[in-house]
């Protein structure tokens, strides 16, 4: 079945800076994907519930406020708890290099910082297509 890839873009935690997340959402839309954008101030629980109800292939998490370690970790834990497999998770925002390593260990495929191109994000997703 050749359905378009479905992606959830969400901002976790108390962070209202949504310009970047919206740019990514629109970029992936232009790359032919169906993008559910759930906006700012989502809890990890809401993000995982939304991903399950929407049956997405990919989750993109954004954080620019420094809460990424706690928030993203919780998302990964909940996905494990719900026994979700085969789902690609990537992240973006202002995230220090040391944390990038830690996040990748948690199972986050890639972390995109400022200046990343939409094409590189789209490529990561397309390559991982199940």
């Amino acid at each position: 079945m050749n359905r378009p890839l479905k992606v959830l873009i969400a901002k976790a935690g108390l962070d209202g800076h949504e310009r970047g997340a919206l740019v990514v959402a629109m970029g992936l839309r232009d790359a032919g994907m169906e993008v559910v954008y759930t906006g700012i101030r989502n809890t990890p629980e809401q993000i995982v519930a939304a991903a399950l109800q929407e049956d997405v292939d990919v989750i993109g998490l954004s954080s620019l406020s420094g809460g990424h370690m706690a928030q993203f970790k919780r998302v990964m834990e909940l996905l494990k708890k719900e026994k979700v497999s085969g789902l690609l998770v990537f992240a973006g925002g202002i995230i220090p290099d040391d944390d990038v390593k830690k996040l990748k260990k948690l199972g986050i495929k890639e972390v995109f910082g400022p200046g990343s191109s939409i094409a590189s994000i789209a490529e990561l997703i397309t390559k991982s297509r199940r």
Partner: protein
Amino acid sequence: MKMHGNELTKLVTRLESGEPLPTALYRRTGNARILGITGPPGVGKSSLIDRLIDNLRRQDKTVAVIAIDPTSPTSGGALLGDRLRMQRHSEDEGVYIRSLATRHHHGGVTDSTPQIVHALDAAGFDIVIVETVGTGQDEVEVAEVADTVVVVLMPELGDEIQRAKSGLMEIADVLVINKADLFNARAPATSPRYSALKWERPTIHTSAKSGEGITTLCGAMDIHHAYLVHSGKLAKRRERAARAEVTRLLQSRLTASILRALEEPQAQTILTDVAKRKLDPHDAVEKLTKEILGSHTRSSKHAATSTRRQTTKRRKTRR
């Protein structure tokens, strides 16, 4: 819920891709109330639904929402941005929200909408809400699915002539003027009048922002439902819905066989003759119908006896 969450999610994905609903599930449908929420982009349909969910959950009713946004005609992608207005209900187990892209279907809903509504109905939700894309005047397909259609507008969208036009304004069972907090919009003091024989469409002023008017709107929808039941109109609407759904399925099957038929060499010759002005388009249709189409539609009728056989057949033709 009679169906586990994940099972439902996967089923909806399959229906979205055009697979048919299992027969056993269709037999379990017909119990949910189907509400259609439609209106132009940006009038606050999603925010209003967020408030409706609140109200319905307080009455202990379970709610499923399908929220539709348009597919890009150029990229085939979509930005599905309705859910974010209702995201706070995500964790509530009595609520299921699913965003859908139109995938090039016109009419305000998706190809798969009737089947997905059946699935949510069979899953045991009390209320199924269909939120259309932001509509223009002519996208009225939601009326083929919903028991009660709510058309949402906002202040300053037009004068009396706009109200008198056909299409969107005609399908409203309940008319809502949302954002009533703007432009000093005054609510006319009409409450829905209800007799078993005649429904007088109410106009209700709401503000999804403040929550004003939501209880009145819920009341009006309840009264409309009672009217449908007591007047016998509900059964009629469901008949109309069944007819519309079957007609559309039939049309898409016939379209598929027409496209297949046009691939044949004999048909290609006819098309070339039209291009060369040897044959006019109407005569071409006559010829195609007589010589080629007959055999094709007959063969697809036999395939219809088993949907599984039909899918294999479809796959084969694609190769």
